[in-house]
C-alpha cells in the first residue's frame, strides 16, 4: 500500500475527489495542508485541481511559493513520484519541476467536456498500468490548458519520450503538439490536464482514469519503476 499525500491549497477543489480515487485504488491517501512542510513519509504526492489561492495572478503562480512546495520539490529531486492534475500541472510548471507552461485556451473560454487522449508513455509511476497507445476518454475542465514550450524544449520532450498524454481526434485548447500531459527527464514528476479522478467508476460514465491511481499500487507490487521501463523497452537509458 502506497502512502499518497494529496496537497490542499486554499482554492483546491479536486482534493476530495483525488483522495477518494487514490483510496479506491488501494492507496493509503491523506491530505497535506499547504502550510505544512512535512509530507509524512509519502511515497507519492498529488497536487489536485482547483484554483489555488484564487489564481487571480496566473494559474499556479502563487502556489509555487507555498511552504509545502519546498517539501514537494525536495521529494521530487530525490526521485519521489509527483503528479499534478490540471491546476496541479500548472503549479508544477510554475515551480520549474516540469518543462513548459500552460496558457489561456486558444478559444479563450473555459472548457468543460470529455476528450480523447492517447497514453504515449507508460514508464512513469502514474501510467505504468496502461498499455502504450491506449486511448482514453477523460474529462477536462480548464481555462488555462494550452501547453506551450520553446522549440528546443518541445524537441527534447519528443526525443526523450516525455510526452505522457496526447489529445487525439481533437485538440481542445490549442496545445503544442496536442500535448495534454508531460513528465520530467527523471520521469518521476508527471503533469496532466485531464481529470482521471472524475472517471474511475462505471456510474461516472467510465473508468478510463482509474489506472492512473492503480499504477501507483502496481509499481508498489513490482517495487521498481525500472522493471516497468525495461518492459516498455523504450527508455532503458533513464
Amino acid at each position, binding site marked *: 500500500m502506497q502512502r499518497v499525500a494529496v496537497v490542499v491549497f486554499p482554492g483546491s477543489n479536486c482534493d476530495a475527489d483525488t483522495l477518494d480515487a487514490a483510496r479506491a485504488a488501494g492507496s493509503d491517501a491523506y491530505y497535506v495542508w499547504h502550510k505544512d512542510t512535512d509530507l509524512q513519509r509519502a511515497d507519492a504526492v498529488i497536487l489536485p485541481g482547483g484554483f489555488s489561492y*484564487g489564481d487571480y495572478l496566473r494559474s499556479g503562480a502563487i502556489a509555487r511559493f507555498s511552504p509545502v512546495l519546498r517539501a514537494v520539490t525536495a521529494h521530487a529531486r530525490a526521485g519521489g513520484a509527483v503528479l499534478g492534475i490540471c491546476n496541479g500541472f500548472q503549479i508544477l510548471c510554475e515551480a520549474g519541476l516540469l518543462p513548459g507552461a500552460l496558457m489561456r485556451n486558444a478559444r479563450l473560454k*473555459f472548457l468543460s467536456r470529455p476528450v480523447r487522449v492517447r497514453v504515449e508513455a507508460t514508464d512513469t509511476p502514474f501510467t505504468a498500468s496502461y498499455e502504450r497507445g491506449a486511448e482514453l476518454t477523460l474529462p477536462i*475542465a480548464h481555462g488555462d490548458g494550452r501547453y506551450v514550450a520553446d522549440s528546443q524544449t518541445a524537441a527534447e520532450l519528443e526525443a526523450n519520450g516525455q510526452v505522457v498524454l496526447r489529445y487525439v481526434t481533437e485538440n481542445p485548447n490549442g496545445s503544442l503538439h496536442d500535448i495534454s500531459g508531460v513528465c520530467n527527464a527523471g520521469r518521476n514528476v508527471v503533469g496532466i490536464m485531464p*481529470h482521471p479522478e*472524475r472517471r474511475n467508476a462505471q456510474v461516472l460514465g467510465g473508468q478510463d482514469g482509474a489506472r492512473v491511481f492503480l499504477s501507483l499500487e502496481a509499481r508498489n507490487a513490482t517495487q521498481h519503476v525500472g522493471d516497468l521501463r525495461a518492459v516498455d523497452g523504450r527508455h532503458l537509458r533513464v
Partner: protein
Amino acid sequence: MTDPKITPELVQEHNLTSEEYARIVAMLGRTPTFPELGIFSALWSEHCSYKHSRPILKTFPTTGPQVVQGPGENAGVLRLPGGWAVAFKIESHNHPSAVEPYQGAATGAGGILRDVFTMGARPVALLNSLRFGPLDDGRNRYLFAGVVRGIGDYGNCVGVPTLGGEVDFAPGYAGNPLVNAMCVGVLKEKDLIKAAAHGVGNVLLTIGSRTGRDGIHGASFASEELTHESDKRRPQVQVGDPFTEKLLLEASLELIASDHIVAIQDMGAAGLTSSSAEMAARGGVGVEIDLSKVPTREPGMTPYEILLSESQERMLVVAKADRVKEVRAIAAKWDLDATPIGKVTDDGMYRCTWQGKVVVEIPGRQLVEDCPVYYPEAKEDPAVAKLRASTPHAARSYAPSDALLALLDSASVASKKWVFEQYDSTVQASTVIPPGGDAGVLRVRHEDFGIAVKTDCNSRYVRLDPYEGGKATVAEAARNVACTGARPLGITDCLNFGSPERAAVFYQFREACRGIADACRALGTPVTGGNVSFYNESPTGAVDPTPVVGMIGLLTRADRAVPSHARSPGDAVFVFGDTRAELGGSAYWEVCADFVGGQPPRVNLEDEKRLVDLLVTGAERSLFRSAHDCSHGGLGVALAEVAMGGPYQELGFGLDVDLTAYSAPLTAHQVLFSESHGRAVITCSPERAAAIQALAGELGIPVLRAGTVGPVNGGFRVTLRDGQIEEPVARLRDVYFSAIPRRMGD
C-alpha cells in the same frame, strides 16, 4: 459627517410610501434616524418583505413526509435515504445582471451557494435559468456571453459542478434579462442548522470579506423597474470573489460541524441589516451590534453604509458566548477574519450603536413582521385573451423537413452546448448525467441513490394562459426528472414578473401560482421555498411572465439512471401519451409563422402523474435504454434529439419512425409539432418491448410503437399520413449544434 434630515423626498427616495412611513413613525413613536430609514427601506422592499406576494405564496402546498424544512429558511430541505437530506434553493439576480452581466451573474451564483451551505449542506450542484432578448442584437449577445462567463467563472472556481439549466430567448427580455441561479447541497439530516439566533449573551461575529461601499441598496434596486437611468446603478452591483467564497464555504462547514456556533446566515440582500434582523426575529430575541467594530474596506464609512452594504462573501455567525476564541481559530485557519460585533439580548430590540451612541433602536419582531401586506388588483389584459383566441395568418407553408430544420436552428430549441461547456460539470467526481439531457443526475459518494435536478419554464404558455402555464412548468420539470428514472420529490421556485402594481401583471402572477400549486399538489411535489422577483420591467415593458421551477428527484439507484439519447441500433422506439392538435404557444408557430399566440396545450395532471409513474417504474425495472421528454418543438424535435445523441457523441443514430397511426384530422404539422403535455419518447431493446407495453397498459398510458433506432450516422426518417421527413442525422446534428456558436461568432 452628519446624517441628512428626514424629509418626504428622502422617504420617497427610499422607496417607502407615505403610509409605510406613517406606520414606521407609529411603531417607533418618533421620527426614524437616517440609518433606521435605510433599514426599513431594505427590509420592507419587495425583495425582502414579499409584501405583494405573501398571501399568494401561502396557497402553495409546503408539507409532505419528505419535507424536512419548508419555506422560511435560507433553503428548503428534503429527506433522502440513509439519513441524508438535500438542501436547495433558487434565486434571481436579474437587475444587477442587466447593468453588469458578468458580476451580476457571478454574485448571483455566490449568493445562492451561501444560502445552501449556511444550512450545513455541502453544495453539490448548481443550475440556472436564463432569459435574453434575441441573439441578432449585439447588446443581447453581450449580456448572454457575460452572464454565462460570470456564472462559469464563479462556480468553476468554487468547485461546484453546474449540472443543468435552461436558456431561452424572446423579445420580451431584451430590456431586462433574467438570471436565476439554483444551488443543491447534501447534508446528514441530523447536521441541519437553522438561522435562528438564541442564547442571551451569545456573540455575533462577521466572517469573511470586509464591508465596503458596494451594493448599497441592492435590495431596493431589485424592487424597482429598470429605466434608462439604471446604468447609474452599476456601482450598486457587487463584485464577486469566488476564492474567498471557497474559503468561506470550508470555514462555515467546519464551524457548523464544530458545535461552537448556534446560528449562521449569509449577509445577502440588505447585508448586515437583513441577516441580523432575520436571525433575531426567527429566534425571538434582540440583538445589539456595535457598528464601529465591523471591519470596513475604507475609512469614513457611516453606520448607514455599514448596515446596508451588500459586499459579497460575508457571513454572520452567532457563537456560543465561551467559544469566540475557537470560532476565530477556525476562521484563521482559512485565512479569514472573524470579528465580534455584537451580542444576543433579551429585550427583543434591534439595536445598533456607533461610537457609544445608540443610532438604531427598533422592536425586532415588528421590524421583520409588520411590513404592510398588499392585495393588488388582478385583471387579465384583454389583449392577451384575444391573442389566445387567435391563430396565425396563413404563413408560408414549410415542408415538414424544412420546418424541423428551422426549429433545430432556432436559438430557443438548439443545443445549449456553447453554454454548458463553459461550466465545470464534472468537479466533485459525482456526475452521472451531465448537462445536455432531460435532467442532471449526481450520485452521493458511497451511497447507492442518486439525485436528479432540473429547472424549467416555458414563458410562452404562461404569457398566453398563466394558469395552464404554471401547471405546465411543474409538469415539465417533473417529466424531465422522471425521464432519468427519478421520482420527483419537491420544488423551489423563482417567480419572475413585472410590476405587481399593474393589474395585468398581478393577474399573471396569481394565476401562474394557482397553476403551480395545483400541479404540485397533484404530483406530490411540495414547494420548499424560493424567491419572487417583481419589477422586471424596462422602458419596453414587462418581461414575459417567467415562474421558474427547480425540481429535485430521487433515484433509488444512481447506476440505473436513464440517459436521453438513443444508444443502440435496432432498439425499439415508443411514444408515450396522446398527441392532440395543440399548436398554441408552440415553437413551430413562433419560428415558422412568427406567431406566439393561441391556446397553449392544457395539462391533464392525472395523465402527467401516471406518466411519471410509468417512467420511474420502467427505469427501476431497467426496461428503457433511453427516455426523453416531449415538449418545446413537439414530437418532431424530441425524436430528432433522441437520434442526434448527446453533445459529445461523435455521431448520431439513424431513426426510422412511422407516425401514420395518428389519424385524421391531425395534420402532419400537428403530429410533429403540437406541444401536448404528458408525452415522452423512449428506446429499449426489442426484448423489453412487451414488458413496456404491458406496464403502460396497466397504468392506462397510450403507447405507440413508432419504429426503430437505425445505424450509426444513418438517416432520420419519419413517415406521416400526409408527408414525411428524410434527412441524414449528420445534417440535423450540424444545424442543432452550430446554431448558437454561429450566432455568437464562434
